[in-house]
């Protein structure tokens, strides 16, 4: 697996643009993309995934990148096992059917995600947190070198959020490049790099980016850092 490179990458559509972004990510990189609603985080992820054409600049991604929309976006009446096994579609060439090996890989991934018991459940009837775990299990069997996760823990409870955080870190630890858009600054602080989708965009380590002045500029509020733990949070300037 080689790295992900973007040079002068401008993203967006329908008159809206964000960038330019310059990224160079090596395997096992875990990257948080932060920025206000509507700033272009999803456009950046979809452009890196090859789902949107870049407006300017270039992007080079190894293999087929996997894009995961926010929880609750995918509707499927399939069993969980089948949906996860579909992650191995690209390995089947022209054959019209998946094989036992694919279902076995899906079972192993479901066990890794801690949801082995859900194998026969219908995907659309699960909670959005369970659905998200299923889709991450699919990322595991898919073996995509680049995983782009769009707010993977949006609207989920704290326990599910913690499980998904751990799995996302495991994905990166297994050699994948993992890019996660998020509004959670505590998760961003655990990543290797943070990308801000603002004007201008910035890329750096959490220590460089997650500072009161940067965040105040990015979100347009006042930011403070907790004297005890050092965690930065943004407070509304109108308050």
């Amino acid at each position, binding site marked *: 697996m080689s790295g992900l490179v973007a040079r002068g990458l401008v993203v967006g559509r329908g008159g809206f643009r964000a960038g330019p972004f310059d990224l160079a990510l090596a395997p096992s990189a875990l990257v948080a993309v932060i920025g206000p609603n509507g700033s272009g985080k999803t456009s950046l992820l*979809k452009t890196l*995934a*090859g*789902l949107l054409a870049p407006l300017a600049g270039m992007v080079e991604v190894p293999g*087929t*990148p*996997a*894009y*995961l*929309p926010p929880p609750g976006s*995918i*509707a*499927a*009446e*399939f*069993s969980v096992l*089948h949906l996860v096994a*579909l*992650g191995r*579609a*690209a390995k*089947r060439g*022209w*054959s*019209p*059917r*998946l094989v036992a090996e694919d279902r076995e890989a899906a079972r192993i991934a479901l066990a890794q995600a801690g949801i082995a018991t859900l194998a026969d459940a219908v995907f659309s009837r699960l909670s959005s947190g369970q659905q998200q775990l299923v889709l991450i299990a699919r990322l595991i069997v*898919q073996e*995509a070198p680049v995983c782009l996760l769009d707010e993977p823990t949006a609207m989920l409870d704290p326990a599910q959020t913690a499980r998904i955080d751990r799995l996302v870190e495991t994905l990166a630890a297994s050699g994948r490049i993992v890019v996660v858009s998020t509004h959670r600054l505590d998760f961003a602080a655990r990543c290797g790099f943070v990308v801000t989708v603002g004007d201008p965009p910035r890329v750096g380590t959490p220590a460089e980016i997650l500072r009161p002045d940067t965040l105040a500029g990015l979100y347009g509020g006042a930011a403070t850092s907790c004297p005890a733990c050092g965690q930065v949070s943004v407070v509304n300037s109108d308050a």
Partner: protein
Amino acid sequence: MKRALLALALIAAPFAVILVALGHGPLAVPAGDLLRALAGGGTAEAELALSLRLPRIVTALLVGGGVAGAGAAFQIIFRNPLVAPDLLGVSAGAGFGAAAAIVAGLGMLVVQGAAFAGGLAAAGLALLCARLARGGDPRLSLVLCGIVTGALASALLALMLFIAEPYAQLPALTYWLLGSFSRATAGELWIAAAPIASGLALLLALGFRLDLLALGDEQARSLGLNAPAFRRAAIAGATLSTSAAVAISGVIGWIGLLAPHGARLIVGSRANLLLPASIWLGALFALIVDRLSLAFGPAEVPAGLLAAGVGAPLFLVLFVSTSRSGR
């Protein structure tokens, strides 16, 4: 267990209906004689019954299976259970093609060829329009363009009805539009058999890729599938099969909508099971409709009329029972 028994009964049912259909009528033949005749050595009565009734039965099987398979594929890739196989205006296009040939005074073989061409032309026009309207959800563009070409073809069909000579052509045209399985002779069956078989073969060959298309373009592409190309292939297969079915039998609705719904209840949503099950149920439903069309006295009731008459209430029953059980 209950479901396995139901599946077994449904698998066996077409064979029973075929035996009944072959043996009953003005020339009654016992089942044993028919089986011997099918194996190559029966009585003269059995041979005659086969030659008279087999083309009609094969037509029903082909048309029912063809439109049901196409309907299942369309419902999967458009992620919409209300989608019928003539979504892209195929039925109206084929109707216009046939009407134009009847009004021009051409023979039955040409009428069927013109219907086939008309169906393909309508679907092709819908695809072309959807291609011009880039941006947005490609599935929605296709549905809208299908409505437009369907309306255009319906207007042209109405024009044909308007200019048709009222004593011979208009009844012939009306009867064609009502649908029937009794048109094709054994020699003409290939017109429908080849395109229906190849259309269904293409759909079956796509296999689990239809499931990927059902997840939407973004997910399909994220899983390494060239979604637009595979969607075009699926539409081509379904359209080929539907056009040929309409060409040989006229407009017989409901089977393509109903059979996939029934099949989904039994085997679930996976394309690799849903497609064959839909084809099987569609063929069975068409056989039953064809039998019923002969059951009401000496005059044959048009199959298209019966398909809707039986299909609509059956659909309602399926719909109510599934929404109650929350499936």
